[in-house]
């Protein structure tokens, strides 16, 4: 880090979408040869900022400087020409093509008659692959590679130009520990060549291991930059979360009833193994862990969307077999799924029809759907959950994220379930609606529902849970009561460190 001219500088970037100020004067400076973490909660504006940098969105105000020269980014290709390359979280590879074709996608070397110059192509590819030290060659079909190696192809793609800045977006989400080591070596190598690296991740452990500085965004605003060596997780977390969402634990307590749901040694292939836990009436059990730890898959198994490969599910002390969501619903289990738009809602349908969908068979007058009964349910839950919509005829796709989520929650509450599973209840929802939904979850418990909350946000889990189950890599690492849990122990448990399995 001898050169102090920033490789890349963002200054006062503003980006508004209808109704949302996604970026509010964000500035960021990346030095050559540094690894710079960009952190923030979901919805803090990280991905919007990167889209502005990549020319996918045009900023309303603010300037991007490359080596102190202002540039206007119009497309990812242009960004690449300026030496700014992205390694995306979702791999954007054509898996039927070879490694070489993917690396030079859109810029295959040509000979006469539009022929591909394979010699040059493979030559250039081999040269790049050699610097990455990978165990596959240029002619391999990408679909035959492991996820980690596919990621290497993405990285190789970045190296086709002489990059000034490489942006990694959650690169380790689906990597094993061994694969991570290789990735970090590659990053260190980039660093030593004077390339600036922006590293976007939620994983503190990695951030503290490989980065030089950490910049934090919150609610679309720049919250400061810290030197990694001089800070700790607590300070970073504080910056990320600010004052609005504290790390306070759930302190409300009320009478709990009998065990409503018990899971014994439940397994499902490689997804999760030997998972056991109980949920009482009136209790909120939080499932905390990294993406891919198997939490959602457990919920899906209980809801009949996956067949378990072993173990038992007991409802009210009785063993049940659940083969389909219909079975689950009949037995009083409801699931508010993780992906609101993909799994929770039919966006082209109106609010009322979405809400009453699981019970449309029961809302009949003679052979016909009873409008009156449906509207009654909709009105009831609109008032109860404070859903803001002009009327039930409104298409769900036109509502805000928070109101959409309330429709999904209303849909399942109106089924009067015994067990309610809520997966990522506040993902992509504004702060105001967040705390409303948290309060709602506590209220439900107070009314005697048995509730499971799956979340990747620690404050949320701490805030709503009576008990917390920490998961790592398909296994339950530890269970905590809300009194005994500490942030450190929770983070350790979900990182696979020092977990002692609690029976």
């Amino acid at each position, binding site marked *: 880090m001898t050169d102090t001219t920033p490789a890349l500088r963002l200054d006062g970037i503003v980006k508004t979408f209808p109704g949302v100020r996604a970026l509010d004067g964000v500035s960021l400076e990346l030095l050559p040869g540094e690894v710079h973490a960009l952190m923030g909660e979901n919805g803090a504006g990280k991905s919007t900022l990167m889209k502005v940098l990549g020319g996918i969105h045009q900023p309303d105000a603010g300037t991007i400087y490359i080596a102190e020269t202002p540039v206007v980014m119009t497309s990812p290709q242009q960004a690449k020409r300026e030496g700014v390359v992205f390694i995306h979280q979702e791999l954007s590879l*054509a898996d*039927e093509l070879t490694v070489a074709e993917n690396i030079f*996608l*859109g810029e295959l070397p040509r000979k006469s008659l*539009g022929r591909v110059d394979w010699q040059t192509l493979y030559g250039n590819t081999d040269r790049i692959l050699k610097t990455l030290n990978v165990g596959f060659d240029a002619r391999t079909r990408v679909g035959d590679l492991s996820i980690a190696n596919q990621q290497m192809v993405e990285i190789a793609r970045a190296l086709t130009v002489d990059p000034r800045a490489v942006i990694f977006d959650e690169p380790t989400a689906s990597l094993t520990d061994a694969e991570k080591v290789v990735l970090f070596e590659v990053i260190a190598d980039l660093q030593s060549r004077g390339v600036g690296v922006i590293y976007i991740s939620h994983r503190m452990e990695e951030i503290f291991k490989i980065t030089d500085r950490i910049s934090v965004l919150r609610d679309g605003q720049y919250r400061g930059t810290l030197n990694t060596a001089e800070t700790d997780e607590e300070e970073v977390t504080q910056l990320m979360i600010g004052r609005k969402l504290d790390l306070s634990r759930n302190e409300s307590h009320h009478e709990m009833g009998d065990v409503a749901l018990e899971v014994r040694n439940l397994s499902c292939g490689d997804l999760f193994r030997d998972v056991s836990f109980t949920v009482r009436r009136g209790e909120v059990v939080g499932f905390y862990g990294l993406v891919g730890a198997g939490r959602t898959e457990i919920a899906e198994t209980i809801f009949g969307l*996956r067949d378990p*490969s072993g173990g038992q599910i007991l409802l009210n002390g009785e063993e049940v077999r659940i083969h389909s969501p219909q079975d689950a619903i009949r037995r009083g289990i409801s699931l508010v799924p993780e992906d609101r738009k993909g799994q929770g809602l039919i966006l082209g349908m109106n609010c009322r029809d979405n809400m009453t969908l699981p019970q449309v068979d029961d809302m009949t007058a003679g052979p016909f759907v009873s409008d009156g009964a449906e509207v009654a349910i909709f009105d009831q839950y609109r008032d109860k959950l404070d859903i803001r919509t002009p009327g039930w005829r409104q298409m769900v796709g036109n509502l805000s994220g928070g109101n959409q989520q309330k429709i999904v929650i209303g849909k399942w509450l109106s089924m009067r379930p015994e067990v309610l599973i809520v997966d990522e209840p506040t993902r992509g929802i504004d702060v105001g609606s967040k705390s409303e939904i948290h309060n709602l979850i506590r209220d439900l418990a107070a009314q005697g529902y048995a509730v499971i909350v799956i979340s990747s946000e620690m404050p949320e889990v701490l805030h709503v849970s009576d008990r917390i189950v920490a998961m790592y890599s398909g296994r339950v690492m530890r269970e905590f009561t809300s009194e005994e849990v500490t942030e450190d122990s929770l983070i350790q448990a979900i990182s696979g460190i020092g977990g002692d399995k609690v029976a």
Partner: protein
Amino acid sequence: MKKDSRANLIKQGAIWAFIVVELAFFSIAGEFLSVTDTAFMDFDNMLLLLKQSAPIGIIALGMTIIMINGNIDLSVGATFALAAVVLLDSMSWPFMQALGDWAIPLAWGFALLTGVVLGAINGLIVWKTGVDAFIVTLGSMLGYRGLVFMYNGEQPTSHLNWTLVDFAEAQFLGLHTATWFLLGTALILWLVMTRTVHGRNAYAIGNNREAAVNAGIRVGPHFLINFMLIGFLAALSAVVFYSESGSVNPNDGMLYELWAITAVVLGGTKLAGGYGSIVSTLGGVIAIQLLRKGLGHIGADTETVNLVIGLILISVLFLDRQLNRKGREDLKT
């Protein structure tokens, strides 16, 4: 990793294995059931088979590219008919007749140009309006057929040129003219799809359109070129076929699109795009023609062919799904 490669190999070899099974089956069954004395694997019989494969085959080769690209073209049958009408009618134009046999290449040119223009219309609509190719070509299937009728009413268009017939019936190195066209087209398209930037980009677009767009590949022009290509090939197919027959009915070429798609799917090309091969489509075309001839050979009614082909198509789909299915822990959606 290895397993995937092997599955790929199985997929690519499957159609040829199927052809071998067909040959064996019909040869053996033919011994007992045949209505004629000739053996099924008779050389002339096989040559004829290739020739008969040509009209649908040439179209199916073009359809492969369209489908690899992630589109579909339902209008090829109508394009085929319109090109045929132009071919035959143009030769009776006064100035063309004055040219003598020189009218032939000119008439071919007109017919091929017709195909290219019709394809370009489809391609431009798909590109510029963003309407799905299925709907666009469903519409132009009707529209182009309307143009065929408008050209000559419900009357057949006929023009027999003996030079042309001689050319079409000629055999070179044992193969018929039509067969040469089929094989030549296959060779050229195979080179295009495996060796050229355009071909590789077509795969990339069908395989992962977003990635292709992000990499700066211009999707629209590729669509346009490929639709022009299939229009050209539909016309070429008409040129090859009608040079010999010399008469076209306005309903000719109906359902060709469905036969072509069947051959392509039998050859293993993915409907969603991004995967497929010209050579396998050639296999699919031959397999269908073998089935037609084979069933006839063993004395089955020709109508049984439709039944068998339909069921085979569905079985292929089913097997493909079974091959690609993962474990039972999959999400049941």
